[in-house]
């Protein structure tokens, strides 16, 4: 597709459930970022990939959060044993070059609600 695609758009999980969020970046984009956006706040950095290499995961809130991009294109963000504080919109963004040297192209986000 022409833009960054994320699925599912909406996910409701019971506390303790595992969830997986998918990001399909723009074809050929080297860099991929995951952000978490809580209600009324700006996006908070979670992790960053350059091709298949995870170069920065300093923003992952706990070891329940795990991200991968095994073939350097599609990425999955997995959250294990979800908790209510994980409720947020999870944004994926990709960039043409190395890191964020230019424009970030965002997907529409995956809204996670943990009950």
């Amino acid at each position: 597709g022409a833009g960054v695609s994320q699925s599912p758009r909406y996910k409701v999980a019971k506390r303790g459930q595992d969830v997986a969020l998918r990001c399909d970046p723009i074809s050929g984009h080297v860099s991929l970022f995951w952000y978490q956006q809580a209600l009324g706040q700006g996006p908070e950095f979670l992790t960053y990939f350059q091709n298949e290499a995870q170069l920065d995961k300093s923003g992952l809130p706990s070891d329940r959060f795990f991200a991968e991009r095994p073939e350097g294109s599609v990425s999955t963000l997995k959250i294990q044993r979800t908790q209510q504080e994980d409720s947020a919109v999870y944004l994926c963004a990709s960039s043409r070059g190395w890191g964020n040297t230019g424009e970030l192209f965002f997907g529409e986000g995956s809204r996670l609600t943990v009950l």
Partner: protein
Amino acid sequence: AQSVSQHNHHVILSEAASLELGCNYSYGGTVNLFWYVQYPGQHLQLLLKYFSGDPLVKGIKGFEAEFIKSKFSFNLRKPSVQWSDTAEYFCAVTLNAGKSTFGDGTTLTVKP
């Protein structure tokens, strides 16, 4: 750690009024600066960016921003807003080529 402050949380203007949204950041080194916009129901998209050179940057839809290094500021301006500018605006800062740090956003409502 770097941080970004957007002091205006919600701004309400009438059409044709002038706009200035404040953005301050807390890092003393070389930074790349961005403004992103999110229209209702749409994804975040780039409005303008500053890497180096002329500190007055022009973006899409008549927006501009001025980088003032001594004030650690990158304020967004538009001389005359339109109803279609109603959106949420985010300032972001990037060090080197790494992660971007975003402010909490300013919601702009333009009354027709």
